[in-house]
């Protein structure tokens, strides 16, 4: 499949796309404001994947390599649209009110993602990068052009806000100190 992509064969590219696109769209959806934005981000990300696939050494998992490209694409799109920089400050966060009734009751994975998406752009970006994508605060600072300490503080507040929502939705169990997700759907 990778060799076919290196040869610029459409069939191989489509096979790779079909295999990884559902998960990558889930990644983009966590960063984006809506599904259309997420699809745009993923499209841009996969174009980069196919045009830069010669840089893939085969040393790690292909999915991980694609995922990093897609995540960076999402960050670049947010930066380009100034949506990230406009809302990275925490000014509005204190007065923000999240209504747990608006979280759709479908599968738990989707519920969690929808809860993350309710957060302000700055919060959810840091939370996505640190808690889910596994970047360090130092790396996040470099990616987002912010201080490492800012990344830490944003993450702390994002986490607190997300916990509140998840607790109200009963996706999380008390006590907060030993938080553990409730398994299964709600």
């Amino acid at each position, binding site marked *: 499949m990778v060799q076919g992509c290196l040869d*610029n064969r*459409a069939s191989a*590219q*489509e096979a790779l*796309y079909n295999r990884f*696109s*559902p*998960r990558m*769209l*889930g990644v983009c*959806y*966590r960063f984006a*404001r809506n*599904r259309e934005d*997420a*699809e745009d981000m*993923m*499209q841009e990300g*996969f*174009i980069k994947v*196919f*045009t830069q696939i010669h840089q893939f050494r085969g040393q790690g998992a292909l999915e991980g390599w694609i995922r990093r490209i897609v995540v960076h694409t999402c960050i670049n799109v947010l930066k380009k649209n100034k*949506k990230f920089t*406009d*809302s990275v400050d925490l000014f*509005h*966060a204190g*007065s*923000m*009110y*999240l*209504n747990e*009734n*608006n979280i759709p009751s479908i599968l*738990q*994975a*989707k519920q*969690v*993602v929808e809860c*993350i998406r*309710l*957060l*302000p752009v700055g919060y959810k970006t840091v939370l*996505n990068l*640190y*808690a*889910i994508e*596994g970047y360090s605060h130092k790396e996040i600072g470099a990616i987002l052009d912010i201080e490492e300490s800012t990344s830490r503080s944003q993450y702390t507040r994002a*986490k607190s806000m997300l*916990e509140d929502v998840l607790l109200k939705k009963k996706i999380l169990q008390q006590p907060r100190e*030993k*938080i*553990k*997700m409730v398994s299964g759907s709600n």
Partner: protein
Amino acid sequence: MTDFEQSLQEHADNFQMAPSKKVWHGIYNDLHPGKRWPSVTMSLLLIFTLVVIGHLNTNNSGRSGYLTNKIPEPKKSALDLKKKGNSTYNQRIVIRKTDLDKGKKVFVYSPGRSANAGLVKGIPIRDHQNNNAREDQLLADNLQPANNPVTFVPGKNLILPPQPTFSNDQSDVTKDIDTKETGVQNDANSDKTLNAILQGKIDASRGDNFKPTKKITIEKKNSVITDDAPKKETQGAAIKTTKLHKKRNDKVSWVYFGAPVVSSVSFSGKPLKPSTSVSLSPALSGNQKENKVLHNSALGFEAGTQMNYSLSKKLQFTAGAHLTYSGYNIISNEVHPFFATLVLRDPSNGMPYSRSFITHYGDGTGQASVTIRNYSWQASIPVGLQYQFLGNDKVQFNIAGNFEPSLILKSQAYILSSDGKNYVNDPALMRKWNVSSNFGAFVGFSSRKFKWQVGPNVRYQWLSTYIKDYTIKEHLIDYGIRIGISK
């Protein structure tokens, strides 16, 4: 990594979404710009086919230099159809007048017919399969009027007598000859009769099969071949039917039109204010302001086809199918996700109730201004009248109006929350159908091939965009310039 983060990661990783096909199409087109997606090719092929068909139809109907005098085919009775070998049909023969003048031979390809299927004033029309001189002679004897002799040379084609001179030498004459009316029998019957005549069993001058029932002459003045033979009843009936059919076709015309429109909106009604009986977030209390939607007009379009049926010389009934895209822009501002409430009223009992929303859009008074669009795609079936109040054959001035029951195909509407601070989007509040009216005046004029219509048009939506639960009524108004074309 804490348990929270680990659990979060697991749940997030399990989340997958099915992308729409357009994403792959976009990627494909970007990676392979030379190989556009097959739909583009198919679209081009379809357009090309339509153009070719349209071009061919135009050429067939609009060929100049030929005069057409088509004799309609008589209606066949059931008895006629049962008769073996008595197949009557028309054949169109195109004869250049210059050929007539010069006495040239005219050949007609008539597969399945016996020899000498048709003869126009002594011009032998020779079948490619059977050029028998004897047959030529016999037919010439029978078909040629006595005062217009035809010279016949055995083994060769007929030598024509002098033909009338036409005033317009460059024009052509088209003539349909009914094989029945020229007295020529077809197929086996014809051959049998011919043999009988040759053997002296049947008097050629008496034979009904060869008796000319139609005398064809060519008039000098108008250069049109006319039929002087007595009209049969069936033929008369057929002509009458054709005339009626043509008359009916003349009454109906089709117009295809498009119109860029500028959409505006009018609001009426009062919003329901949050009351103590309705549970609201503390953030919404106080600072209530009058609901006012800051909006701008936006461009849309209307396209469709319209059938015009003439009720009288100046009045036409119109019906058709329209597709309309219209909407307007709302000036909003991005806010952090915010809890907003909409107070609605149950139309069945009049009791208020509320719905809550998370929204990103403020009322447009804050910073980070953004524009959001309310729009709708509507398919409608208009029914109306059109009246020509002035004009002549070249230019006409008309007024038109209609009612349009419309189906809302797709729509998006942001509604101001009850406290007037935010816009919320709830598709459930949208009507699935509506009724609109079009009023317009237009000028119609004829070009070489088409008739054109241009004029202003106003479309008003009678029913509110929203269902009765929402107390604010919104009426869309579209102003456009309609451009129509018909043949």
